[in-house]
């Protein structure tokens, strides 16, 4: 299915390209047609034509993911339809002028929408890795500034350096960073950054998170920073891994992967309506109308919540819920019945069969969205608590092993490569012994951040043991995997950690196993092979990445 899916996505992208190519012409045509209207009955055929063109635009726009354009076209279409229902002479000239302006504005909406990728079937590209986050650093000490930029770069952050406050102010009048990091004191300009941000309009208008860094964490600067709503106040010498930790947390709060909901309902129109409503709220939805497909759908789509119709041909909701609960993996998956059933006894009986709640049809759109959001968020919280390591937020041992099996099976089905990397910190024990566990934890977190930063969202990352990590890289061959992990190794080796004025570095070794070299292997075999490659890297002198040779791991021995 994966192959078909990507081929299909490629074909779809071609169609979208062709559509976008002739769309500006159509928009110009619509605008020209609208501007020739003057409010005479003889123009009825023209208005009728316009109505149809807007209708087509609304429909095709949403089909190709141009939601804003579609929405605007829909509004204009409605207006045209309303006018067609009465005498054309009655059209208010002011409303007509606004309508014409609306048609002219469509082109600008298109230009905005076009720059975004098509939403229906997006696949993540492998390069460039990491997200682009625009950081500005304002630091009058140019040497120090350049060093911070270099260190942030190792974590994959692109940083723009300003050595003067007024240069940053000028830039702020035109552009906006995702985050602003500022030194507090600018003796040469005779300025204090906390005062400048408070008093100058260009800074005040920025509306982005601000982090201050200062040699003296004096009380007044701190208070002023806090009053400005600064995200943080860090003291020099700057501990870059700690700064990155701060950045990661700030961005993580903003980045939320969409909730996934499976709707099982034989009433396709209603299910489709629910899907549209939930999708409108940014929720990923899959609809199935055939109850027998539910197991496959849950396995493939891995929903975080199931909305289940209570009565379907051949099966009842409680029967399906019971079947789902027979699978250990899905014991905790929230199941909510959607039903017109108002009989309390029937509801209670249904709840006895493994479902969590009831939503009564008809249900308002807002209520549906809220009900789904709350339940998925709670399920996610619980799942995170159980599956994620509290220090790094990475997946725990058991879960990552599961992921390997799942991703390997998926890769085999789709005929695609998949790689597993086992990563271990070098001489980590001596860091713990020398600097203490708190510092050791910071090193662990730094690796975790670096991996998250450099890998794709579709890659699963886990903490396998104390200082051992696993990365699962779907759709990634040996060469790409080696380049990606090598990049992480080199960046990590370049990091300098601070502890009580002392600076130290740490390195990592990694072993890689790629599924294409092990056509017969199970997930556990891949893990063992990656582990063997890791030990080869250790034996080879550490601070390096080794690729497993393709020989099946020796079984039964240890």
């Amino acid at each position, binding site marked *: 299915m994966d192959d078909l899916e990507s081929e299909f996505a490629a074909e779809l992208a071609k169609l979208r390209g062709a559509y976008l190519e002739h769309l500006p012409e159509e928009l110009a045509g619509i605008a020209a047609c609208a501007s020739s209207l003057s409010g005479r009955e003889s123009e009825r055929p023209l208005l009728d*034509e316009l109505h149809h063109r807007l209708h*087509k635009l609304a*429909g095709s726009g949403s*089909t*190709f993911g141009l939601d804003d354009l579609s929405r605007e076209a829909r509004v204009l279409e409605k207006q045209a339809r309303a006018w067609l229902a009465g005498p054309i002479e009655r059209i208010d000239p002011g409303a007509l002028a606004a309508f014409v302006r609306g048609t002219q504005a469509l082109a600008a909406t298109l230009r905005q929408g076009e720059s975004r990728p098509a939403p229906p*079937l997006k696949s993540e590209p492998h390069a460039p890795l990491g997200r682009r986050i625009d950081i500005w650093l304002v630091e009058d000490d140019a040497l120090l500034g350049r060093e911070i930029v270099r260190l942030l770069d190792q974590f994959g952050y692109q940083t723009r350096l300003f050595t003067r406050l007024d240069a940053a102010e000028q830039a702020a009048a035109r552009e906006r960073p995702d985050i602003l990091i500022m030194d507090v004191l600018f003796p040469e300009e005779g300025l204090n950054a906390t005062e400048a941000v408070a008093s100058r309009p260009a800074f005040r208008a920025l509306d982005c998170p601000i982090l201050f860094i200062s040699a003296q964490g004096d009380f007044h600067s701190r208070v002023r920073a806090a009053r400005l709503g600064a995200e943080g106040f860090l003291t020099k010498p700057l501990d870059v891994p700690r700064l990155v930790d701060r950045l990661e947390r700030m961005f993580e709060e903003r980045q939320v992967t969409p909730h996934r909901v499976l709707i099982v309902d034989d009433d*396709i129109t209603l299910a*489709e309506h629910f899907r549209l409503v939930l999708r409108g709220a940014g929720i990923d939805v899959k609809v199935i109308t055939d109850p027998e497909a539910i197991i496959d759908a849950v396995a493939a789509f891995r929903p975080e919540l199931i909305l289940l119709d209570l009565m379907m041909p051949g099966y009842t909701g409680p029967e399906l819920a019971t079947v789902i609960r027979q699978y250990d993996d899905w014991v905790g998956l929230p199941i909510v019945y959607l039903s017109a059933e108002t009989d309390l006894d029937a509801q209670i009986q249904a709840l006895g069969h493994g479902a969590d709640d009831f939503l009564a049809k008809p249900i308002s759109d807002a209520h549906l969205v809220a009900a789904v959001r709350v339940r998925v968020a709670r399920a996610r919280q619980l799942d995170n608590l159980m599956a994620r390591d509290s220090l790094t937020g990475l997946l725990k041992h058991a879960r990552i092993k599961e992921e390997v099996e799942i991703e390997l099976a998926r890769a085999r089905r789709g005929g695609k490569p998949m790689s597993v990397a086992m990563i271990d910190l070098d001489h980590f024990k001596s860091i713990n012994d020398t600097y203490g566990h708190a510092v050791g934890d910071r090193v662990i977190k730094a690796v975790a951040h670096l991996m998250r930063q450099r890998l794709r969202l579709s890659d699963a990352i886990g903490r396998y043991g104390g200082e051992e990590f696993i990365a699962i890289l779907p759709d990634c061959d040996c060469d790409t995997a080696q380049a990606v992990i090598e990049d992480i190794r080199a960046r990590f080796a370049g990091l300098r950690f601070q502890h009580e004025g002392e600076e130290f570095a740490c390195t990592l070794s990694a072993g890689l196993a790629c599924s294409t070299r092990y056509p017969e292997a199970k997930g556990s075999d891949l893990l063992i092979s990656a582990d063997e490659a890791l030990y080869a890297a250790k034996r080879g002198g550490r601070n390096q990445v080794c690729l497993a040779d393709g020989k099946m791991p020796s079984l039964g021995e240890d």
Partner: protein
Amino acid sequence: MSLLQRILYVDDETGIQSVAKLALEMVGGFTVKLCGSGEEALREAAAFAPDLILLDVMMPGMDGPATLAALREQPALAAIPVVLMTARAQAEDVARYLSLGALDVIAKPFDPMTLASQVRAVWEKHHG
């Protein structure tokens, strides 16, 4: 159970036509013929002999419901199941379309990835 193989897709918007054709052929494995209007659909239906007709509701000239009614008047075409596709899948519209003899109603915009399975589901509901 009769098999769903040939689908006549009727829509005046060529962009949506092409996505629907791709989705139904590539994902669903159906044989698809496209028509740009109700009038064209009436001319082509007999020769193509579709198992199912997917009909856009709002088209210039003969709209979906009018095309459906015209199909029902021709003995050779009257038995072909028709599914209407509409952007405004409001409850009262759906009821009216069903009363006109439509097999079912599919909301637009459709998801290209699942259109074929939606159509198959409608078919199986009525022919399963």
